[in-house]
C-alpha cells in the first residue's frame, strides 16, 4: 500500500517540477453550510524536526478539505480540550462531550529532509481505530500528502471516491502593463485553490479549458493569431499541439472518456456543427448537420453519447446524439435557455446553464426522469463543471461586476465562494 502511495507521490512531484509562477491565490469561503454535516476533529499534528514548526500545517489542510466537501464539520482548534498526537493518549470522553463522531490524530517527524507521517482515525463512541497509516515523503510533497489523508478519511467514512487531490483549470483576465490592456491567462491550481500557476497567457482571448481524462493535458481555445484555434497542452513540459484551426469557429473542445477522441465545434462548412476528431488517425466525423447553432459538446461517461447545445428549435436547448453518428433527440423542455450540458461521472445527471427571462442559473437534470433541480440563485451564473465524484459543481458567477468562481453541492445545500485578489476569474474546469 505504502509503495503505491509513494509511487503516486513521485508522479505528483514530477508534475510539481514545472510549477513556474507564484500566482495570487484563490481563497475559498463557505457561504452556506449544511446542518447534516458530520462533526469530527482533526487535532493539530505533533512535530519534531530541524525547524521549530512543520513547514506545512497538515491538520488545517485536512480540516479545510473535509469541511469543503459539505459532508463534515471540523471542530475549531480553540474548542479542543486536549491535543493528543497518538491514539493511546486520547481520552474519548472529552471528545464525546464535545459531540464529535470521529477524531484524527497524527504526527510529523523530520529526519534529514525526510518527513515521516503517521496518523490514525478513531471512532469516538466505540473508542476504536478505523484507519491508520505511516508514510515517508519529501518536504514538497507534504501538502499533497495532507490532501491524500483527506481522501483516505473521506473514502473510509462515505464509501465514495473523493476529489481532494484533483485540480481545477480556469481563465482569468486582468488589466496589465502600462496601457492597461486586458491580459488573458489560463491557470491550473489544486482543488483548494492552492498553488495556482499560469500555463498560457495572451493579449487575445483564451477560452474553454478542459482536462484530459488522465489529468496530464489541457485542451483550450486561443485567439492568439487573431482567429480561433484549438490546442492540446501537456502539463509536464508545456509542449502543445495545434489540433484545429479551420476557417471560422474552432471551439468547445472536450476529450472523450478514454482520451482517444475530441468532440469540438467547427463552422468550416457554414453553420457551427459538432464534430468528433480521432486524435490517433486525425479522422474527423461530422455529427450534426443542422443550419442552426450546434455547440458545446460533452461526452456521456460510457463514451456512447454526446450532449450538446442547439438553437434549432428557436432557443438554445440541450440535445443528445450517438457519438458514432445518428439521430439527435431533445433533452430539455423547461425554461427558455438551457446550454452547456455536462454529464456527471455516473451518467445519471446533467448539469447545465438554465435560464428563464434572462435569469441565468445552474441546474441539474436527472437523466432518467428529466426532472430539473435549480441549484443557484443567479442571475449571471455560467460554465458549470462537475467534480470527479459529482458531489460538487464549480461554476462562474458575478459579484460586484466581476466574474468570480463559486461552487455548490449537487444537492444544492452547500455554497462556496472562491475569492481572487483582482481581475475576473471564469470558466472553471475540474480534473477527473
Amino acid at each position: 500500500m505504502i509503495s503505491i502511495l509513494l509511487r503516486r507521490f513521485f508522479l505528483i512531484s514530477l508534475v510539481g517540477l514545472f510549477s513556474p509562477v507564484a500566482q495570487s491565490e484563490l481563497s475559498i469561503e463557505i457561504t452556506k453550510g449544511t446542518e447534516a454535516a458530520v462533526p469530527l476533529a482533526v487535532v493539530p499534528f505533533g512535530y519534531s524536526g530541524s525547524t521549530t514548526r512543520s513547514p506545512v500545517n497538515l491538520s488545517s489542510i485536512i480540516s479545510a478539505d473535509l469541511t469543503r466537501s459539505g459532508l463534515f464539520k471540523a471542530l475549531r482548534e480553540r474548542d479542543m480540550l486536549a491535543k493528543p498526537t497518538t491514539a493511546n493518549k486520547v481520552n474519548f470522553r472529552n471528545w464525546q462531550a464535545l459531540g464529535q463522531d470521529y477524531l484524527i490524530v497524527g504526527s510529523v517527524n523530520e529526519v534529514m529532509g525526510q518527513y515521516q507521517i503517521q496518523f490514525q482515525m478513531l471512532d469516538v463512541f466505540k473508542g476504536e481505530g478505523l484507519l491508520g497509516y505511516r508514510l515517508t515523503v519529501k518536504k514538497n510533497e507534504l501538502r499533497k500528502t495532507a490532501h491524500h489523508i483527506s481522501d483516505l478519511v473521506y473514502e473510509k467514512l462515505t464509501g465514495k471516491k473523493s476529489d481532494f487531490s484533483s485540480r481545477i483549470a480556469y481563465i482569468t483576465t486582468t488589466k496589465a502593463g502600462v496601457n492597461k490592456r486586458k491580459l488573458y491567462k489560463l491557470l491550473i491550481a489544486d482543488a483548494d485553490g492552492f498553488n495556482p500557476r499560469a500555463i498560457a497567457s495572451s493579449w487575445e482571448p483564451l477560452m474553454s479549458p478542459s482536462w484530459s481524462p488522465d489529468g496530464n493535458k489541457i485542451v483550450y481555445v486561443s485567439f492568439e493569431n487573431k482567429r480561433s484555434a484549438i490546442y492540446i497542452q501537456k502539463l509536464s513540459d508545456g509542449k502543445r499541439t495545434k489540433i484545429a484551426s479551420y476557417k471560422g469557429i474552432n471551439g468547445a473542445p472536450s476529450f472523450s472518456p478514454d482520451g482517444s477522441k475530441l468532440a469540438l465545434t467547427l463552422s468550416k462548412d457554414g453553420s457551427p456543427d459538432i464534430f468528433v476528431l480521432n486524435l490517433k488517425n486525425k479522422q474527423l466525423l461530422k455529427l450534426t448537420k443542422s443550419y442552426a447553432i450546434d455547440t458545446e459538446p460533452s461526452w456521456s461517461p460510457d463514451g456512447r453519447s454526446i450532449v450538446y447545445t442547439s438553437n434549432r428549435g428557436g432557443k438554445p436547448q440541450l440535445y443528445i446524439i450517438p457519438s458514432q453518428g445518428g439521430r439527435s433527440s431533445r433533452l430539455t423542455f423547461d425554461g427558455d435557455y438551457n446550454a452547456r450540458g455536462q454529464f456527471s461521472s455516473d451518467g445519471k445527471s446533467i448539469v447545465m446553464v438554465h435560464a428563464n427571462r434572462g435569469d441565468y442559473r445552474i441546474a441539474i437534470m436527472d437523466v432518467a426522469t428529466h426532472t430539473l433541480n435549480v441549484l443557484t440563485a443567479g442571475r449571471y451564473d455560467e460554465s458549470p463543471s462537475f467534480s470527479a465524484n459529482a458531489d460538487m459543481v464549480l461554476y462562474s458567477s458575478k459579484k460586484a461586476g466581476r466574474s468570480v468562481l463559486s461552487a455548490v453541492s449537487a444537492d444544492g445545500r452547500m455554497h462556496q465562494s472562491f475569492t481572487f485578489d483582482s481581475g475576473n476569474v471564469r470558466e472553471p474546469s475540474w480534473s477527473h
Partner: protein
Amino acid sequence: MKINKLALTLIASTVVLTGCTSTDEKDASLLDTDLKAEQEALITSGLNNNAVSGEQFITQGLSQSELNANAMNGLTSLGAEFSDPANPLSKQTIYFKHDSSQVQQDFISIIAAHAQYLAANRGQRVILEGHTDELGSREYNIALGEQRAKSVFSILRSQGVTGQQVEVVSYGEEKPASEGVGEASWQLNRRVEITYQVQ
C-alpha cells in the same frame, strides 16, 4: 533577435502581473531577480514550442484601440468620407437585439454604403468581427457572434462584395465594447464591427 526582445518584454510584463497585484516599478524589479528564471519557464510552458507563433502572439496581439487606430490611419488615406459623421461610411458598428442575428432595418443603409464602397474598391479587405453581450454561455455566444457577422456578410455579398474581400471572426462575449453590467452596456456589446484592413 526580435523574438528575444519580445520575450523580454513579455517577461517584464508578466512579472508585474504574476508577482503581485501592484504595478509599481520597484516591486516589479525586486520580483524580477527572484522570478526571472521561473518567468522564462512560464513562457516555455505557454508558447515556446513555435517561435513564429510566439512572435505573432506579441505583434498581432494589439488591443482593439490600437487596431482601430491602425484602421483609422488606413482610412485617412482611403478618403475623407470615412471620417465625415454625415457619411454612413463613418459608422462601422452594427448593433443587434439580444440572442438575435437579424440585421435591424436602421442598419441596412449603413451596410449598403460599405457594400457600395467595397464593390467599387476590389482590393480593399474588411474583417467582420462578431460580438455578443455577456449573457448566457460563452461558446454559444461565439456561435451567435459568428451568425451576426455572417448576416452582415450576406448583405455585403448580395450587393456585389466578393468573399475574397471579407473575413468573418467571432469573439463572442470575450471582447466587450463596454465592461459594465446591465442593458446599457449589453446593447453596445451586441455588435458587428466592420474593420477596414490597412493596405
